[in-house]
C-alpha cells in the first residue's frame, strides 16, 4: 500500500517540481552543446561547404557512406576535440548531480512550493555532505561490484569456460551475474540516496552517520525500497528506449521537419530528468514516513516564557571573571 503511495508521490513530485525537471534538462542541453561545439566549424565546412551534407541529409545510398567515412578521417581532430569535451562534461555532470541532490532533498515533498532560491540554498547547505556521501558510494559500490565481477570471472573460468557456446547453464550464469550486479547497484544506490536524504531531518548529520541512518531506515523495508527502485528503473528505461527509438527513426529533411526533430530531441532529453525527480519524490516520501515512525513526535511542552529582561544579579551571583 505504502509502495503504491510512494510511486504515486513520485508522479506527484513531477507536478510539484516542474522547475527542477526544466533545470536538469537545461543543464543537460547546455553541457551537450558545449561538448559538441568543437564539431560545429567542421560541420559547416564539410556539410554546408560541400555536397557532402546534401548527400548525407538525403541519405544517398552510395555517396553518403563515403562522405561520412571521409568526414571522420579528415576531421578527426575535431571529432577528438568533441570527444574530449564530452569526457570533461561527464565529470562536470557528475559533480552537478552531486550538488543538485542537496537542493532536491531540501525542497521536494515539502508543503512549500519549490523555488529556485530554496533549491540553491539546499545545494549550498548540503554540498560538502553530498561530496562525502558520493565518495563513500563510489568506494563501496565500486569495490563490491568489482569484487562481484572478479568472482564471476573466476567461477566462469573454473566451471563454464569449456562448455559449448550457447549452453543454457552459461546463459543462466550470465543472467544471474548481471542481475546480481544490478541488485548490488540498487542497494548502494538506495543507501546513497537515503544518506543524502538524511539532511531533511538532521541538518548537521555527517556522511558516515548518514549512511548508518539510511541503513537503519531501510532495515526491514528493503523489499519495498527495491520495488520502488525496480519500478522506476523499468518504467523509465522502457519510456526512454521508446522515445529514443521514435527520435532515431523520425526522418527530417525539410527545414520544418528538422526544427520539429530538434523539439523531439529536447523532449527526449526531458524524460531522464523527469524520472530522476520522480524517483526522488518516491524516495523522499518513503523517507519522511519512515522518519516519522523512527522518531515519534516528542511530547508537546509549552516552554515557560522567558522574562523579557533578566533580573539584576545579586552580589553573590556575580560571574567569575
Amino acid at each position, binding site marked *: 500500500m505504502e509502495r503504491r503511495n510512494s510511486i504515486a508521490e513520485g508522479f506527484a513530485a513531477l507536478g510539484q517540481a516542474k522547475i527542477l525537471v526544466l533545470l536538469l534538462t537545461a543543464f543537460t542541453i547546455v553541457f551537450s*552543446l558545449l561538448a559538441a561545439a568543437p564539431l560545429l566549424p567542421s560541420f559547416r565546412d564539410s556539410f554546408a561547404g560541400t555536397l557532402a551534407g546534401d548527400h548525407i541529409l538525403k541519405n544517398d545510398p552510395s555517396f553518403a*557512406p563515403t562522405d561520412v567515412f571521409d568526414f571522420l578521417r579528415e576531421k578527426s581532430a575535431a571529432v577528438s576535440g568533441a570527444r574530449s569535451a564530452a569526457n570533461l562534461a561527464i565529470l562536470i555532470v557528475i559533480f552537478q548531480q552531486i550538488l543538485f541532490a542537496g537542493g532536491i532533498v531540501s525542497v521536494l515533498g515539502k508543503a512549500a512550493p519549490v523555488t529556485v532560491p530554496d533549491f540553491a540554498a539546499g545545494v549550498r547547505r548540503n554540498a560538502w555532505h553530498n561530496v562525502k556521501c558520493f565518495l563513500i558510494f563510489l568506494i563501496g559500490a565500486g569495490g563490491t561490484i568489482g569484487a562481484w565481477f572478479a568472482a564471476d570471472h573466476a567461477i566462469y573460468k573454473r566451471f563454464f569456460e569449456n562448455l*559449448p557456446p550457447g549452453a543454457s547453464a552459461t546463459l543462466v550464469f550470465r543472467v544471474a551475474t548481471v542481475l546480481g550486479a544490478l541488485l548490488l547497484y540498487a542497494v548502494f544506490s538506495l543507501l546513497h540516496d537515503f544518506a543524502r536524504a538524511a539532511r531533511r531531518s538532521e541538518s548537521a548529520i555527517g556522511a558516515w552517520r548518514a549512511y548508518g541512518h539510511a541503513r537503519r531506515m531501510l532495515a526491514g523495508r528493503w523489499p519495498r525500497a527495491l520495488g520502488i527502485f525496480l519500478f522506476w528503473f523499468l518504467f523509465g528505461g522502457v519510456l526512454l528506449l521508446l522515445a529514443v527509438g521514435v527520435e532515431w527513426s523520425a526522418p527530417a529533411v525539410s527545414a520544418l521537419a528538422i526544427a520539429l526533430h530538434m523539439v523531439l530531441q529536447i523532449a527526449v532529453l526531458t524524460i531522464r530528468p523527469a524520472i530522476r525527480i520522480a524517483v526522488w519524490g518516491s524516495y523522499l516520501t518513503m523517507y519522511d514516513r519512515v522518519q516519522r515512525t523512527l522518531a515519534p513526535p516528542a511530547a508537546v511542552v509549552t516552554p515557560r516564557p522567558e522574562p523579557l529582561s533578566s533580573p539584576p544579579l545579586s552580589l553573590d551571583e556575580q560571574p567569575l571573571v
Partner: protein
Amino acid sequence: MTVSPDDRGHLTQLPFALLKRAMSRLAAVSAIFLSAGALVAATPISPPAVEYTIEVKLDPATHMLDGQERLIWRNPSGDPVSELRFHLYLNAFKNNRSLFTRESGGQLRGDKAGTKPEDWGWIDVLSMKTSSGSDLKPSARFIQPDGYPFPGAAKEGEALADETVLSVPLSSPVPPHGEIALSIAFRARLPRVFARTGYVRDFHLVGQWFPKIGVYEPAGMRGRAIGGWNCHSFHANSEFYADYGRYDVTLTVPASFVVGATGKRVSESKKGNLAVYRYVAENVHDFAWTADPSFQVHEFRFDPPADIPPGWSALAARQLAMSESQIALKPVSVRLLLQPNHARARDRYIGSTKVALSFYGLWFGAYSYDTLTIVDPPDDGLGAGGMEYPTFFTGHAPRLLLSWPLDRVRWVEDVTIHEFGHEYWYGIVGSNEFEESWLDEGINTDSEYRAMQLAYGPRPARLPGGLGFDMGSFAHGAYASLPNLDPIRRIAWGYSSGASYGVNSYPKVGLFLAQLRHDLGEETFARAQRAYFQEWSFRHPTTSDFFDVFERVSGRDLSTYRRNLIEGTARLDWSVISSKTQEQAKDYGVFDRTGGRATFEKGRRVLPTKENEASSVEKKKTYESVVVFGNRGEWPHEARARLVFEDGRVLDRALPADARWVRLRIRYSSKLAWAAADPDRVNAWDWNRLNDSRVLGQGKGPAATAGSRATAKYFAETAYLIGLLLQAVWAAA
C-alpha cells in the same frame, strides 16, 4: 571427383611432357582464339604434378593426428632436382619463436593464440622413405628460405627457430620430367583454434596438416629465369601456394563424429567405435577436413534453373556478348555442417551460397567441381572461420550477428560469398598468395562486392534507422585510412604493417578493379575477366598474366594502371582548389563603339550627352565564376567537372588526364551554386571525396543543396547523443 568441362572447354588427356610445353605457349594460342571472339578454357594438367594418398587417424582427446602419406611428385622441369622442399605449416604454432608467432605477435584476424601447454600445435615427420626403402629423414633439415629477421634465431645445439619448411636432400636427383615416390610417416598435434586451423572442445578444423611439397617452378614459369623451389616459410600475413594434384585421403575418427572434407566421399565404414571415411579430390591443390560430433548436417542442391536469381543469366550474357546457353551452369551438391545453436544462420548460408554459385558461375565460368562443403565453426572457434580450401570453406556466424539489430549487416552472407569466391581465384585459378595475394584476395573482394550488391541492393550492409553502407564506400574508407605506404603488389610479409597487407590485398584492389571496370566499360571488363579466369584455370598466373589478358581483350595499353596502381602508390585526387562567383564589374572608362566614343562610369554613360542615360544603363547583371580544379594526387587520370548555377543550369567540362590543374572562368547571368570534380563518383580511385566539391550558393533544381540544413541537423544530433550519454552517467551520482 571429376572436373567437368566448362561452357566452352573440353577435358583432354594429353601426355604430360607435351602439355608442359603447350602450357608455355598457351597465352599465344589463346590470343588467336580470342581474336575470333571465343573464350578458351584451360584444362587441368594430366598426369597431375602431385598425387597424395594419406591415411590419418584423429584422437579427439589429445587432438593428435597419426598419418601415413604416400606422395608421388613429378618434376615439371628440364632440370634434375636434387632437393625436395616440404611445408610443415603446423610448426608455425609450435612455440613463440616461429616466424608466424613472431610476426603476428600471437594475434591474427581478431583472434588470439593461446599460450597454455595444450594450445600449441606441431608436426613431426617420423620417416620419409623412398621406394627403395632408404629413409631421407636423417638428412632432412629445417630451412628459412625467407630469412629470420628476429634476434635469437639460432642457439647453439638447437634447431633454428622456424620449422615450417623442411629441406630434404636426395642422394640421386629426380630426372627432368621424372618422378619420385615417397612414403612419409608423420604425427601432428592441432593447436587450439588460431589462424584458420585447430580444435576447440570436440570441434576440429584440420587444415595445413600434412607434409606438403612445395612448388618447383621451371624456368619461364611465373617469370622465373631459372628453375627452383617456391616454398616459403609460413608467415602471419600470407596464405598458400601449391601444385594441383590428386588427393586420396582416408580419415579415421570416432564413430560419433560428423566429418566433412575436400572432394567427394567415396566410401565409409565402421570399425568398432571408429568410423573410416575415404575422400577423393582431383585437380585441387590442398586438402582440408573437419570433424565434430555436434554438427547438424544440411544437404542441398544448387539447381541452376531454380536457384539463379531472375535476370542474372540475361545480364551476364549481355555483358559477355554470349548466349544464355553458352553460360549455362550445372548442379552442385552442397553440404552445410552447422553448429546446433546457429539454426538462424542456416537459410542465410544456403541463400548466399546459391547467390555465389550463380554470380561466379555466370560471369566467370561454371564451378569446376560436383561438391561443396561449408563448415560453420562454433562461437568459441571462430578463429577457424572465414577460410577457404578447395571445394571446402568455413563460414563465420557469430551469434551476435544473427539477431536484431545486427542481422541485416549480412555478415554471414558476405563471408560466405567471399569464401566461396576463393574457390575461383585461389582454387581454380592457382594464384600464389605468398607473393601476389591481390590476385586472389583482391580480385575476389571485387567479385564479392559485385555479388553482394547485385543480390542485396546498393547497400547490402544495413543497420536500423536507415543506416548502411555500400561495399565500395567501405573499401574507400579502408584505403584512405592508411598512410598509403605500400603498393598493392608486394610479397605478403613485406608490407609496412598487417593493416597495410589487409588493405592492399583486399579493399584497395576492389577500388582498382572498380576504376578499371568504369574505364574499360562493363562489357569489356566482364569479357576480359572471364577470359583471364578461363585461360588460367588450374594454372598459376602472375600480375603480368592478368594485364596481358586484359590488354589483349580490351585492346588498350594498361601500363599506367599497373605502374601506378598495382606496382606504385600513386593517388588520384581531383578536387576543387578554389572557387568564387561575383557580379561582374560594370564597364567604366572610355570605349570606341559603332555610334562613336562613349564614356561610362559604373555602367552609366556619362559622355558625350546625358540624353541617352536611361538606355545606356546596363540593366542585366552578369556574374563571373572562377573555379580551379586540381589533381592533388600523383596518378594522371581524367575526370569530369560540373558547374551548377543558381538558375539550375548545369555545365559539364572534361578535366584532362595530363592536366595538373584546370581553371574554368564562366560569365553567366546567374551565380554559381556549386562546383564539383567527378560529381558522379565514377573514379573509384579518388583519394578524398570531401574536397571534390564546393558549395557557394543556393538555387533551384540541381542547384538546390541542403548542406546548411545538414549542418543544423547533425550538430543537433551530436549534441543530443552527448546529452543522452551525460544523462546515462547520472546513474553514477
